[in-house]
């Protein structure tokens, strides 16, 4: 077991009183002294800063239009028609139509950047290296930090440092300069709120994070709040809600494959994915809202009329909803919104209702 890596903000986290935990090979803040609940609420009401530098950034070099064609052999999204200066949520697929990873694909003027899950970086690189021609050989970007600023006040806060950020709409990205260093801002996130992710050199990350947090509207938040926020936003967590066996259709991610891609049917696992799209998958990922206060966590059984119909993949207490919520894979026959189900938590059978996602309406700046 190798020692977990430190991000460029490691010392700063310690100074803020963060509780650091190992996560996907990195030592990251689980929470700060305010606590997960307070950090969660701060993101919904004002603004929080996350250090997400553990996420992998993969550069795919070479002519971006040629690279788009090559990447489409592996990826569900329509990259050929993606505009320069935009980001797209998309999936890296395997030949069985399962999900190797979910990622953000950012098209810059000169190249593609793929922002991937930390724990999947090695698997993604292997898949990309095996499939991409020499001109587009993927390169893992080192020496960069990634800071997420999320919440209704994020735009005003960031504008004081980078006024150009206000020109961006949801899923747009642009180059900026931070302390004279070339950096990149994209308007997106993993909380359901308006917000930004800023990719910047490690050398200026600490100062920049400190400047943002000097604003009274901003406080740092850790992995705990990141998880409860994304769950309320109905966003999947790779390794829990989706994995190499999950098809995009079962996961409710069929929308990542547009008409051109469906008609071309040239992505990995197209036969299975298109069949499931036409006939419906056997199982579906659904949202559940539970009665009472007892959360059902990942692994909890889901029942209908006393029969097991699925399993919770993510679950916890949702501070904004004020109730326990979960994502669960269940038989398609019981996946309709409003269906009454039961979650078994230890000796308790807790009533639950299939709920439309997201649990909390998103507030992206479209």
């Amino acid at each position: 077991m190798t020692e977990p890596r430190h991000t460029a903000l490691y010392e700063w986290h310690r100074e803020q009183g963060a509780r650091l935990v190992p996560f996907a090979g990195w030592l990251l803040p689980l929470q700060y002294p305010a606590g997960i609940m307070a950090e969660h609420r701060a993101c919904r009401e004002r603004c929080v800063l996350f250090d997400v530098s553990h996420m992998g950034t993969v550069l795919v070099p070479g002519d971006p239009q040629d690279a788009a064609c090559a990447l489409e052999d592996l990826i569900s999204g329509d990259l050929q028609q993606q505009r320069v200066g935009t980001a797209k949520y998309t999936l890296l697929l395997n030949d069985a139509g399962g999900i190797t990873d979910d990622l953000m694909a950012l098209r810059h003027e000169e190249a593609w950047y793929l922002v991937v899950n930390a724990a999947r970086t090695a698997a993604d690189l292997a898949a990309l290296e095996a499939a991409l021609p020499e001109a587009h050989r993927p390169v893992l970007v080192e020496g960069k930090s990634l800071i997420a600023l999320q919440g209704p006040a994020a735009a005003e806060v960031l504008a004081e440092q980078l006024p150009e950020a206000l020109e961006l709409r949801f899923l747009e990205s642009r180059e900026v300069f931070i302390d004279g260093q070339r950096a990149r801002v994209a308007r997106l996130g993993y909380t359901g709120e308006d917000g930004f992710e800023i990719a910047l050199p490690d050398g200026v990350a600490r100062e920049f994070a400190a400047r943002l947090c000097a604003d009274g509207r901003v406080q740092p938040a850790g992995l705990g709040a990141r998880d409860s926020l994304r769950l309320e936003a109905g966003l999947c967590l790779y390794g829990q809600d989706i994995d190499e066996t999950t098809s995009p259709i079962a996961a409710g991610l069929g929308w990542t494959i547009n008409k051109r891609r469906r008609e071309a049917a040239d992505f990995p696992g197209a036969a299975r994915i298109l069949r499931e799209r036409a006939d419906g998958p056997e199982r579906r990922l659904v949202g559940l809202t539970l009665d009472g206060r007892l959360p059902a966590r990942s692994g909890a059984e889901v029942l209908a009329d006393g029969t097991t119909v699925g399993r919770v993949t993510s679950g916890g207490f949702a501070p904004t909803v004020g109730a326990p919520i979960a994502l669960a894979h269940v038989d398609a026959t019981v996946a309709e919104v409003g269906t009454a189900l039961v979650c078994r938590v230890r000796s308790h059978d807790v009533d639950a209702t299939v709920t439309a996602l997201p649990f909390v309406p998103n507030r992206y700046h479209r």
Partner: protein
Amino acid sequence: MARRYTKDHEWVELDGDDAAVGITDHAQEQLGDVVFVDLPDVGRTVNAGDAMAVVESVKAASDVYAPIAGEVTAINESLADAPGLVNEAAEGAGWFVRIKPSTPAEIDSLLDAAAYAAFVADQS
């Protein structure tokens, strides 16, 4: 009777025929915001070290172990509506259960306040 502690971060204090049991302030701080406490049924017999309750924080579910053998004589009903009491007053109003000890002397074999404080300091 002085309060005693376990290395699993429970506290126990004999008070009359039975003993109040809860988790330590250090434990609640580590757990973070408590959203639910799953308590045993009154009348249940427990052995020292048995998982007897589960405390659910925003982050995770954690087992709470019986510090001593005995019978559960009462549970803290207030926690059902106000699980946050565990964060506010872990070693007071946020108690979990009362246990009638099979062997009251068993309590003396646990850590005293100084030994528990030293144990916690050693862990961090």
